[in-house]
């Protein structure tokens, strides 16, 4: 059975609606002669010093397992090193995670090659040097879903811009809406989250122009300075996940909105002499269990709850970590067990015929965030 992204859309609609209400409220007050205003608010709240923050994930991929630990002190996060961290499964295997010298203090990686197995249940254990013991709720790792199709549709989105004078204004931005279909062979409800990334390939020509007035035949020809550049953008600021409804299990999701690719190159921070060559979408997706899905749902609600001036019920993030030695001590964060895959698609477009296609290409996730080749076409172009 297919599920349409209607609920997701309604979430967005609500977000926009409340945002509009905000603007209207301000306008109305202005019009009615009142003087509504807002200012940053710094309330006095209880200290959260020494609370630990867990950002942990185990997957069925050996290079995607990390437990990040931090602690909170004076309104600042600090890496938590020297803890004993291990993951156990439901058949009594123990996998040790260590804070090695990766240059990322507080990041704990498997001491040996480790990849989770679908169907297994994993539990995170943490022992800090001051003797506090933390433990997660058991998390089941579900088999990976698969992408059935990626497609696009011409569309227009509104965007709030901020001018250099500091003034905000709205503008409609044309572009392509990227949609994806996913399915699972499992009987369970399909729950997933996606981390889409746009890989933008563009050319910058810095070849010096010849000065015709001072042309000299003896001069060496000007060497071309063509830069073949790329840079990556994370496409969703919000948590991108499917929202399921109650009812029968949904084993597939169609037309899930992945992201929006505007046409204007200036929105990608490109300069006037830079030309977009290709747009490539890298889709990293995770198949979630119900606990993880709930956590990311609340993350999503929290992210879209901006501008809610009518003081809505806030979205508190659930945690599945407990302090065993001191149960009253709060813990923030989440331990996730998910299957994950990554697929890369290149956009092919013939605007004259309104043709939009996404063709699968080789994996480019490993590319650095940005880079450039001088006068040499990179292998992945």
């Amino acid at each position: 059975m297919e599920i349409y992204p209607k609920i997701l859309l309604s979430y967005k609609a609500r977000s926009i609606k409340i945002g509009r209400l905000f603007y209207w409220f301000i306008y109305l007050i202005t019009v009615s002669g009142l003087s509504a205003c807002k200012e940053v608010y710094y309330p006095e709240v209880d200290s959260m010093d020494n609370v630990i923050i867990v950002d942990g994930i185990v997957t069925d991929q050996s290079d995607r397992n990390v437990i990040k630990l931090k602690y909170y002190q004076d309104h600042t996060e600090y890496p938590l090193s020297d803890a004993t961290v291990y993951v156990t499964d439901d058949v009594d295997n123990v996998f040790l995670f260590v804070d090695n010298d990766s240059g990322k203090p507080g990041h704990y990686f498997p001491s040996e090659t480790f990849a989770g197995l679908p169907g297994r249940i994993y539990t995170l254990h943490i022992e800090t040097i001051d003797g506090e013991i933390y433990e997660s709720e058991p998390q089941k790792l579900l088999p990976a879903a698969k992408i059935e199709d990626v497609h696009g549709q011409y569309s227009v989105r509104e965007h709030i811009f901020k001018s250099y004078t500091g003034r905000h204004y709205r503008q409609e931005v044309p572009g392509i809406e990227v949609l994806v279909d996913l399915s699972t062979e499992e009987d369970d409800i399909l729950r997933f989250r996606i981390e889409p990334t746009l890989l933008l390939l563009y050319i910058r020509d810095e070849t010096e122009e010849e000065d015709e007035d001072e042309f000299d035949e003896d001069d060496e020809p000007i060497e071309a300075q063509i830069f073949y550049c790329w840079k990556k953008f994370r496409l969703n600021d919000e948590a991108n996940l499917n929202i399921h409804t109650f009812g029968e299990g949904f084993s597939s999701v169609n037309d899930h909105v992945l992201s929006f690719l505007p046409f204007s190159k200036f929105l990608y921070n490109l300069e006037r002499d830079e030309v977009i060559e290709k747009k490539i979408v890298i889709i990293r997706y995770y198949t979630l269990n119900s606990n993880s899905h709930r956590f990311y749902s609340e993350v999503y609600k929290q992210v879209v709850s901006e501008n809610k001036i009518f003081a809505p019920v806030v979205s508190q993030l659930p945690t599945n970590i407990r302090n065993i030695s001191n149960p009253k001590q709060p813990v923030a964060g989440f331990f996730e067990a998910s299957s994950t895959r990554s697929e890369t698609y290149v956009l092919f477009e013939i605007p004259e015929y309104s043709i939009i296609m996404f063709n699968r290409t080789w994996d480019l996730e490993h590319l650095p965030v940005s880079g450039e080749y001088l006068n040499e076409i990179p292998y992945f172009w």
Partner: protein
Amino acid sequence: MSLRQKICLKIFLLLSLQMLYSGEAAIFGGTTVPIDEIISVLENENDTRIFYNAEWFEGVTFDQSIAYLPLEQALSSIIGEKLLTVLYVDAYITIIPVEFSQNRYTQADTLLITVGSPSEFGRYNNVDLRGRVLDGSTGETLPGAIIYSESTGRGTTANTDGSYTVNLPVGELLVRVSFVGYEDQYRRVNLLGQGDLDFYLFEETHRIDEVTIMARRAEANISRTRMSVISMDSRLLRELPGNPGDQDIVRNMTLLPGVQNVGEFGEGFHVRGGGGGQNLILVEDVPLFNSSHLFGLISVINPDMVSEMTLYKGGIPAKYGERVSSVLDIRAKPDNVEDFKLIGGIGLLNSRLYLETPVIDDKISLSVGGRSSYSSWIIDRLPMEEMLSSSAGFYDLTSRLVMKPRPNSTISLFGYYSYDDFSSAGVTNYNYSNTLTSIKWNRIIGEKLSFGLSGGLSNYDYNIRERGPVSQMESYSLNSSIDYHSLKSSLLWFPDGNHRVESGINLIGYGITPGILMPLDSLSLIQESAIEREQGLEMSLFLSDEFEINEKFSTEIGLRYTRYLYLGPKNINSYGLDETGDNYILEESTFFDENEVAAAYGGLEPRLSLRYSLTGNSSLKLSYTRNNQYVNLISNTTVITPSDLWKLSDHNLRPVISDNYAVGYFRNFMENSIETSVEVYFKDLRNVIEYREGADILMNHNIETDLINARGYSYGIEFYASKNSGRLTGWFSYTLSGSRIRTVGDSPVNQINENRFFPSNYDKPHEIVLNAAYNISRRWRVSATFNYSTGRPVTLPEMVFSHGDRQLVYYSDRNKYRLPAFHRLDINITRGETLRLNKRRSGYWGVSLLNVYGRKNPYSVFYERDPGTSRLYERDSYNLYKLFILDRPIPTVTYNFIF
């Protein structure tokens, strides 16, 4: 005592009295005291009540020995040469100006009214004269008015609904009708047989200098059985400080003890810790589901249409039900129109016009009113690009037709419509509307019985249309509405002079369309979707009796029984928890056919009010009320918004039940010119609706999974003191209260704060209101209102942390913190209407200064994303903001007129 001694004593007395009359303190060899002490002693010594205007005796003191003279002699000494006279009616004494009394009598001589059929003349010696006593200006009934025949010494007082029955001998009689604050009326009546005669009394505004008008009996707060009742008539409503642009009767209610709002503005109000959806706002017996224009800037009630509004905070009479927290009963005017009248006002935000006119004298009268904003006109002229093709505005229309086909029968038709519309750059449009209609028929049957029948319709509808809010793919329209149909009948019976028995049957039908989502155009990917419509039926019977047990005790006992049916067609879902206990799963779905009962609830709702008179000017009262509520306002925000939903109780959402207890002490001072009271209340609430973290109410097909049934209680003590007469009037109130709530779920998914009690959104422990008005002259008046309250509870971020690439917020427990305290001072200056008697037109200006000292009271706290730069996909940052509506003194001006 020798003759010489007697003559000396008389001369001495005369001289002393002369000094009294000249307004100077008399030195009589003893202590001098003010008038109120003399009157107080006279009342106690002679077991009577004496009404007078204290200002006639301002600056005058009397020798205290006067109080021990025989009553008539003492009164004679007091009134002296002040051109006052004394009227004796039953056990009451009223001091009034001589010329006033004489004028009335002369006028009465010119008119002889025949009552009864000539064919009955001679058949009876004594017959019943009955009718009603009404305010001639507003048509309001005047309970407690005295109807008295001086020649026979017979009389009676009007009942609580203004009706009276007095047994008099046939023949020509002089009947006097009086009521405190109103001109006495004398009527020559040729009584031939049993018949009806209504009396219309008029206030004394233009007749007597500096008489303070009281639209209700001065001691009503002491003598009436009910407590926790707030009444405001049109005069008081007019005299309170203005809101931006206009008077706002709902807003003014929140200045009274036990009634709160959530901020500077905002829709609705909260009574004694209850939610906004727990208040029944009745306009001519039909409920109003959204009481605000423009997101709460102004209430939807046109103040010109209001005759009187009464708020029952507790001790709710048995004839009212439907909601658990309070009843606000708004009565439109008029019942009786004698002359054409046009009332209007021009304000900052809107203007209004109201017309009332007789269509057929004494038979049919009509009133029509309307208001309209001009904010759209202003927006069109704003030099702001964002406002191009934008609009924002509202209007409301009111009409009432009253017909009296027979003297004992009244039929009234009432209609009301309000509409709000906002459009942003032609892309986004919001609108919502209220539609109310009612028809009422009242008939007096015999001497002691009256019958009422009414039918009502109410509809609230809101619609949102987004043309590409994010992208064209997501253009949609969303519609939601609630329909209310009622048929109510009642019987009012006066078996004797002591009992007032009321009974009735109510039938209410609810229909709710929670949401219909539609794509706006072919490009939209929004799938058409509708949440199942809900319908329910609420039936109720009630019976109440108000009577005096003895001179000290009076009571009102009532019982209401309600039966509620949740009807199909409907799929009823049952939910369980998954293996993690973190998520609901659907266990079963059962379909119910059209009109099949899917869920049923009911119960008895006892009501009790008891008054014990301690002295003539003090009493002790208590009340108990149980209420059931079957329709709930679903709002996941602290502030009520136009897009909140109404939802019926069903299989998963049980009806809200409240038990309200209150006890109060009431005492008046200085001839009732100062009223004081202390009320203590406790409210126990069951099945209150709370919301899961991040609850979503918009187009949620399984909204019950985001709602949690909770328990709650609220308590408080309300101190109130008011001065109702004299140049300086006003009130002071202080409320110390608490409102707590807790969930009782057995899993984290249906728990909040681990099932611990936490403050509800409406918990404001301290609230102070000081209102004072001073009449500088007959036309100029200055008033000020100061309001302080503890900040409302709020859930705040305690920690911001990064998870992945995101910045996330760790929130505190629900409502753990509070916003800063709210306080504000408003002042108002009014230039009153002309005092000429035969004026064709009158008007008054009102100038207000809101927030005199520029306090920045937080309205709400919210997150906002800072766009940062003009680029897409750059990391955004979030900040916590507080929004305040008034951050500086705001002047407003209104002009009101009457033709």
